[in-house]
């Protein structure tokens, strides 16, 4: 390894001083803006100052961290201390969806939303015990590097790159949409302008300095995002309970929510569509009774999110940057701790927001609603107002079911709900921006490195000099970024649901091969390639088929009664193509002729336990669900299949060479170097 460890770096030596000074500076900046606001500076200027000054700081860090050294560009020189790598992983990990969306999902789904909290934290257990120390010991640059070295070269590497690109690209597009939404609201520019402004912010961070710049920017972004998330929650807690510890005090809010919900039901009201009427009750259907389907989906989602976390390359590659195996292990624990700080606050946001709305909005005349509601009755990029009052029975009173709030607003509007000054709203926007930018940085770097390092250098031109590799890497970074921004700009918010798919795809494609590569010495090259391909293809086709060809999916796996229901629903879809509707109407008109699907026996395996294959109407489509499982948890089929394939093919192919077994021995032990089975797999 041509690492530069040992070289004196005044920046690394003074990390604590630098970041404490930075945190103090940021606090001072927020207070200063608060004073400016009191002196009458308009809100719009405050918004501009927040967005441009924070992006300016990230750009500054990006520029001073520029480098021409390959190990600095790809793995930050491998000298990021565990605790700082933990913070960087925290902001790398927590995206716009965590910062803006999660509390909103909890607001809407109640207990059901906790699957996200559990899934997105528990996955780090798998990272720590199964993968991170061994990938660090392996000591190269990327996750496909490991696949290539362990599983004999280009086939394994290429499949790894395909999975990585599929999973990371949809994910990065979603981050750019997130940046667009926030920038649009606080700078009052068009969505497309906002997207490209955000893109510029992302590129200055990562272009010049690669992983080194991204690491130190992500630490700075973590500090901003955690401050921005905790402060409004604390103020909200003070307002409602008088105690500034939201994580402890929202129990009282939950209790009051339960009582209020009971009262609403007793008064004959129903909750708005998409929102549960039993906030704290686990595994219940719309009628409040136990639902096997809800329970199975809850656990399946936890499983997919956990395994996906442990397979997403932009997270795993962060553990290539620590100085040692020991630090890599400690670093995963710190990562989880920093993520935990935000995730155990999110349910408090949801509970306080819900209680405030139940107490001050429901039952009020529409004419005298609080001011903040009027501010948010603007059209969102999803096509409906962020906050939408639909007076179903036209009585002029806001009933339980009349108040429709988009989940993304719960965090963004909290400062206004709690009657806090505008500077706090600007702080929340800066935090959301930090979350989206940091994740986009990490993802773009993972994508560009896969293309430049794994495809160009390792598969096309093994003799490329470092300077050319780094230039190609930056050009590819730019191309991928523009492509992602273009996709974000043209598809807008419709693409956000794809993020959840990234977890299932990464889980099914990569997890089994990575884990078996370390823990099962007899895993053969062919087995790993087949395992990755099977997991990836099964999951990918399942997702596409059930989501976009839901009726056809049902005609294959469902019973005739279920097919008829799906056809009826399809014929009634407002946005489906005329062709599809005509086809569905034809089926309905000729209902007696519908036969069970050719694989209906398979789809009905668990029908006796309350898990038949059925459909749901989501996102304007009829979406098929094998055994009632939402396709967000599509990985539950792919992950076990991938493990099984690897195990079985390994049994029937020649065992790996002694050199390969030595290599596996070496990565299992912290001390000493790594004997690669194929020397050509080494990086500088």
């Amino acid at each position, binding site marked *: 390894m041509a690492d530069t460890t040992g070289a004196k770096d005044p920046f690394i030596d003074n990390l604590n001083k630098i970041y404490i000074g930075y945190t103090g500076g940021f606090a001072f900046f927020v207070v200063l803006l608060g004073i400016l606001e009191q002196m009458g500076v308009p809100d719009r200027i405050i918004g501009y100052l927040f967005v441009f000054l924070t992006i300016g700081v990230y750009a500054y860090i990006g520029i001073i961290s520029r480098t021409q050294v390959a190990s600095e560009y790809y793995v930050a020189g491998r000298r990021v201390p565990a605790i700082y790598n933990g913070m960087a992983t925290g902001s790398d990990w927590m995206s716009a969806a965590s910062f803006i969306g999660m509390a909103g999902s909890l607001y809407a789904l109640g207990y059901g939303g906790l699957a996200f909290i*559990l899934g997105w*934290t*528990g996955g780090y257990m798998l990272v720590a*015990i199964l993968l991170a120390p061994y990938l660090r010991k392996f000591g190269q640059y990327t996750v496909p590097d490991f696949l290539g070295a362990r599983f*004999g070269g280009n086939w394994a590497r290429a499949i790894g790159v395909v999975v990585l690109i599929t999973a990371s690209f949809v994910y990065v597009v979603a981050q750019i949409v997130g940046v667009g939404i926030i920038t649009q609201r606080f700078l009052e520019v068009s969505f497309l302008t906002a997207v490209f402004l955000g893109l510029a912010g992302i590129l200055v961070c990562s272009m010049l300095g690669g992983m080194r710049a991204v690491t130190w920017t992500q630490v700075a972004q973590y500090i901003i995002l955690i401050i921005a998330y905790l402060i409004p929650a604390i103020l909200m807690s003070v307002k409602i309970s008088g105690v500034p510890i939201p994580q402890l005090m929202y129990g009282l809010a939950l209790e009051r929510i339960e009582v209020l919900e009971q009262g609403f039901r007793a008064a004959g009201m129903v909750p708005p569509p998409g929102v549960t009427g039993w906030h704290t009750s686990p*595994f219940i259907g719309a009628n409040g009774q136990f639902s096997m389907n809800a329970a199975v989906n809850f656990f399946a989602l936890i499983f997919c999110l956990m395994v996906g976390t442990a397979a997403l390359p932009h997270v795993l590659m962060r553990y290539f940057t620590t100085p040692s*195996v020991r630090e890599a292990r400690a670093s*995963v624990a710190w990562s989880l701790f920093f993520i935990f700080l935000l995730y155990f606050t999110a349910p408090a946001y949801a509970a306080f927001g819900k209680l405030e709305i139940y107490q001050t909005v429901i039952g009020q005349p529409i004419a005298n609603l609080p001011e903040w509601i009027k501010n948010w009755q603007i059209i969102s990029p999803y096509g409906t107002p962020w906050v939408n009052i639909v007076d179903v029975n036209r009585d002029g009173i806001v009933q339980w079911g009349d108040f429709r709030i988009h989940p993304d607003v719960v965090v963004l509007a909290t400062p206004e709900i709690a009657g806090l000054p505008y500077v706090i709203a600007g702080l929340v926007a800066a935090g959301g921006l930090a979350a989206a930018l940091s994740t986009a940085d990490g993802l773009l770097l993972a994508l560009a490195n896969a293309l430049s390092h794994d495809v160009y250098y390792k598969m096309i031109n093994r003799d490329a000099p470092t300077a050319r590799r780094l230039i190609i890497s930056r050009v590819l970074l730019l191309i991928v970024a523009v492509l992602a921004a273009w996709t974000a700009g043209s598809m807008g918010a419709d693409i956000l649901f794809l993020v959840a798919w990234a977890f299932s795809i990464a889980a099914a494609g990569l997890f089994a091969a990575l884990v078996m590569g370390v823990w099962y010495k007899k895993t053969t090259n062919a087995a790993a390639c087949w395992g990755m391909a099977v997991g990836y293809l099964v999951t990918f086709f399942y997702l596409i088929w059930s989501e976009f060809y839901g009726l056809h999916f049902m005609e294959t796996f469902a019973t005739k009664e279920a097919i008829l229901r799906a056809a009826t629903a399809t014929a009634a879809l407002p946005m489906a193509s005329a062709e599809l509707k005509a086809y569905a109407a034809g089926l309905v008109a000729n209902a007696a002729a519908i036969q069970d699907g050719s694989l209906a026996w398979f789809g009905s395996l668990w029908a006796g336990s309350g898990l038949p294959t059925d459909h749901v109407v989501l996102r304007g489509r009829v979406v098929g669900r094998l055994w009632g499982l939402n396709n967000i948890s599509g990985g539950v089929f792919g992950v076990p299949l991938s493990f099984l394939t690897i195990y079985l093919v390994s049994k029937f192919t020649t065992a790996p060479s002694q050199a390969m077994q030595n290599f596996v021995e070496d990565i299992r032990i912290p*001390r*000493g170097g790594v004997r690669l089975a194929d020397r050509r797999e080494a990086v500088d």
Partner: protein
Amino acid sequence: MPLVESGPEPESATSAAVDPVTAQAYWKKTSSLMWTVLAIWFVAGFGVHLFAQTLNPIHIFGFPLGFYMAAQGSLIIFVVALFWFAKRQNEIDEEFGVQEDA
């Protein structure tokens, strides 16, 4: 598939850093720690939540216990377990003398 099986050995590091017997004993102990932590992961991530309905009538500080476990309890277990794992694995490394050179 034209898979590359093996190539020439690199010049350096041709011998293992630790003798095979120690390596095997070390790996056995490391594996058992892995299974222990994996069991904690499974119980905190899935097991307790199977009983969410049974736990929910118990209220602590207003929190229904089943809800609390999914919102905070399991997360705290995850964080503590990971710090414990890092410490325990370091002890195993030192016990077998396979820790990295300082």
